[in-house]
């Protein structure tokens, strides 16, 4: 199997893990009364995006992961506007691509802790606030209540404040993820494909099962 197939399997695996974490873990955190969006972005989303970029070194991969995660989010029974959150996730994937466009695929610029923490802070903040803004624009339009610029502007301080938690978390998690680079992870094709596809299927089965249980 060629590199393209290997990359597609990677997009499916990491996109599914992203979608699974948003739907299942995110909902659990929200049920505990914690700020799920911020915690999810700092603890799971940005680390998953950075790890996948580091392992595969292919720009465009994270956009594809956003589409897979967004598709999985459509099966989230815990949000009112599934399509809005699905599109917001895809937008987060696109924002990651934009931020990391100028960063080399081997992360050689991120050699010291300051740079690693800084990129974590900047990426988590921009991706979280960007996704939040995107949802605030899209949700009223999809819901049919119409988009009001004054509502978005009034909510802007809250959205800008909400980015602080994921930024601070990512300042710790991203250096941790980048330290994994020192480990040599090489998996043979005979194990790689069954593992990636198996884990992806498991993520989808768990999300769809929870959706069916909730809606039944």
């Amino acid at each position, binding site marked *: 199997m060629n590199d393209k197939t290997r990359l597609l399997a990677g997009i499916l695996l990491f996109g599914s893990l992203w979608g699974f974490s948003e739907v299942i873990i995110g909902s659990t955190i929200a049920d505990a*009364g914690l700020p799920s969006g911020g915690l999810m972005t700092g603890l799971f989303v940005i680390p998953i995006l950075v790890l996948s970029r580091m392992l595969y070194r292919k720009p465009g991969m994270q956009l594809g992961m956003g589409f897979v995660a967004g598709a999985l989010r459509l099966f989230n*029974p815990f*949000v*009112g*506007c599934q399509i*809005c959150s699905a599109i917001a996730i895809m937008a987060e994937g696109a924002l990651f691509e934009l931020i990391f466009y*100028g*960063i080399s695929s081997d992360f050689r*610029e991120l050699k010291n802790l*300051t*740079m690693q*923490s*800084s*990129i974590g*802070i*900047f990426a988590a*903040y*921009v991706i979280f606030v960007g996704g939040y803004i995107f*949802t*605030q624009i899209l*949700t*009223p339009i*999809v*819901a049919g*209540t*119409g988009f*009001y610029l*004054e*509502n978005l502007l*009034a*909510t802007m*301080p*809250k959205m*800008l*404040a909400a*980015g*602080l938690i994921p*930024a601070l978390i990512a*300042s710790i998690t991203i250096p941790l993820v980048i330290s994994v680079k020192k480990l040599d992870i090489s998996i043979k094709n005979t194990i790689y494909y069954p593992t990636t596809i198996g884990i992806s299927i498991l993520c989808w089965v768990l999300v769809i099962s929870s959706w069916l249980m909730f809606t039944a």
Partner: protein
Amino acid sequence: MGKEKFIPIFAMIVLIIGIISTLYVSAIEKNNKSPDNILLINGKEYSFDELCNDFQLIKINTDDGEKTGLPLEKLISYAGVNCPSCNEYNFVASDPYQKTVSWKDVKNGILTYSEEYNLRVYFPNLPHAIWVYNLIKIEVNKL
């Protein structure tokens, strides 16, 4: 200027924006917080407890389960709005999140109180992002 310089600067900028916004939102929330669950509807002040004495609670079904509260349709009329369908309604929170809703959806909505969300509106046919909590004001705007 190389990436080694501007990435930490960008990080500092977003951190400063985040900290200032957090302080601003906390100050606004503190300033707007009503100790007695007072709600401003169409410029008039109402206490939630008083409203509960004047109106019967109703139950509605939402995708987040059954909710019990005061019918917004009656509260709007009670606040002196003569032609409810001639207006749209702006629901403002203390933080100050806000959402605008048409009469078509307002008339199906309810006002509730809980320890977690304080005053909150529920609209069965609208996404959760429109269910404004920590509500302090309902503005009535002519269409």
